[in-house]
């Protein structure tokens, strides 16, 4: 299928992208890897009038260490992240999760920034960045601002980004040597997670257990209080609000969250 008509603009710099977004407002969408946006446009579930292509902004496609932080350019592709040595050392959870998204071809094009901004509650990397206590750096007409991941996901496909703001970087604290675990439960390798769990150290976040990625706060609190992994995992579904779907009932999702959290915690500890 073919998207509805739109005007294609190509930005040569972050500033130019911001200016273009400012000019077209709600009508415009940012095009990065396009792997969240174009499928929706082809099915005509989205029909933006203007696309601002930021793919050429190579400066946003890199990973570097900056003091105690790892800085990930928003245009870094899943495949880049999966093979990145800096990430592998300092944020191995993210490197691993990036290799679990979609399939080979999708990983060659899809970008971390695109995935986060799309804010699909089923997205793997959103939950992983949340578990890592990451922050999202945004450029707009007023300059840069930093939004903690915990405040970035407002609801399904909803973020605090203004129409003229562009996500440029993701910053996560460097945590070399921290144990991590990731469980993504799906029917087929290429499916989105029915439920997923990302663990780094004692931080636990859940995929698809609410309208946004969420921290398993009851589990984290129990761990902090010295509970066993199994006892802590049994609390994983507390405070969540998973949706009911034909292939995954609410109750089943809660059950999976508990089972998968136990497994991810064991892996992180092991």
């Amino acid at each position: 299928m073919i998207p509805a008509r739109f005007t294609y603009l190509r930005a040569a710099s972050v500033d130019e992208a911001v200016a273009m977004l400012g000019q077209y407002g709600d009508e415009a969408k940012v095009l990065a890897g396009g792997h969240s946006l174009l499928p929706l446009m082809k099915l005509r579930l989205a029909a933006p009038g203007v696309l601002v292509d930021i793919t050429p902004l190579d400066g946003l496609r890199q990973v570097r260490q900056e003091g105690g932080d790892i800085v990930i350019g928003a245009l870094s592709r899943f495949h880049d992240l999966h093979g990145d040595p800096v990430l592998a050392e300092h944020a191995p959870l993210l490197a691993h999760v990036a290799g679990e998204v979609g399939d080979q071809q999708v990983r060659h094009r899809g970008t971390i920034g695109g995935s986060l901004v799309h804010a699909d509650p089923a997205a793997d990397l959103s939950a992983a960045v949340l578990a890592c206590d990451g922050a999202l750096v945004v450029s707009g007409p007023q300059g840069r601002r930093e939004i903690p991941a915990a405040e970035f996901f407002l609801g399904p496909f909803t973020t605090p980004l203004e129409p003229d703001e562009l996500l440029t970087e993701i910053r996560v604290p460097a945590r070399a040597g921290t144990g991590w675990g990731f469980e993504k439960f799906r029917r087929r390798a290429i499916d989105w997670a029915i439920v997923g769990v990302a663990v780094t150290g004692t931080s636990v976040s859940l995929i698809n257990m609410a309208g946004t990625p969420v921290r398993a706060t009851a589990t984290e609190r129990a761990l902090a209080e010295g509970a066993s992994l199994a006892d802590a995992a049994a609390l994983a579904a507390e405070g969540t609000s998973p949706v009911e779907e034909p292939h995954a009932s609410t109750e089943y999702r809660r059950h999976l969250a508990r089972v998968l959290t136990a497994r991810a915690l064991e892996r992180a500890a092991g």
Partner: protein
Amino acid sequence: MKVTIEVNGSEVSDEVEDRTLLVHFIRDNAGLTATNVGCDTTSCGACTVLLDGESVKSCTILAAQADGHAVTTLEGLSGEGELHPVQRAFRDQHGLQCGFCTPGMIMASVSLLAHNPKPTREEVRHGLEGNLCRCTGYHNIVNAVVDASGQEVGR
């Protein structure tokens, strides 16, 4: 807009609608029809080509995004009269039946082997998770990729 893409080593330049998908540029503007469209949700991989050497699904990329870049399709894989090892292996191992998924499957396999020259059977299966085939049950496709990698085909 005007788009110029190097397709199989030759520059193809054409005026297209902004919304033109790369797969249609390849088929209609470059006139190369091996690359097929099998779905509309980036699921099946039939449209897989190499973009700057890496496998991508050309139904989910705008021609405009490939402007100034290089694309390789099935037609550009082998030289005159000589098969690429992956092509040869697909034939020798009977890794295709109706042939519709084959161009995408071969291009995805080429990319897989570029990243992992000696994959295990399990790694081949995972590497091709984005390419669907309705005919072969995948068994002989796995054989073909293992064969193309120069490893013994166990089964």
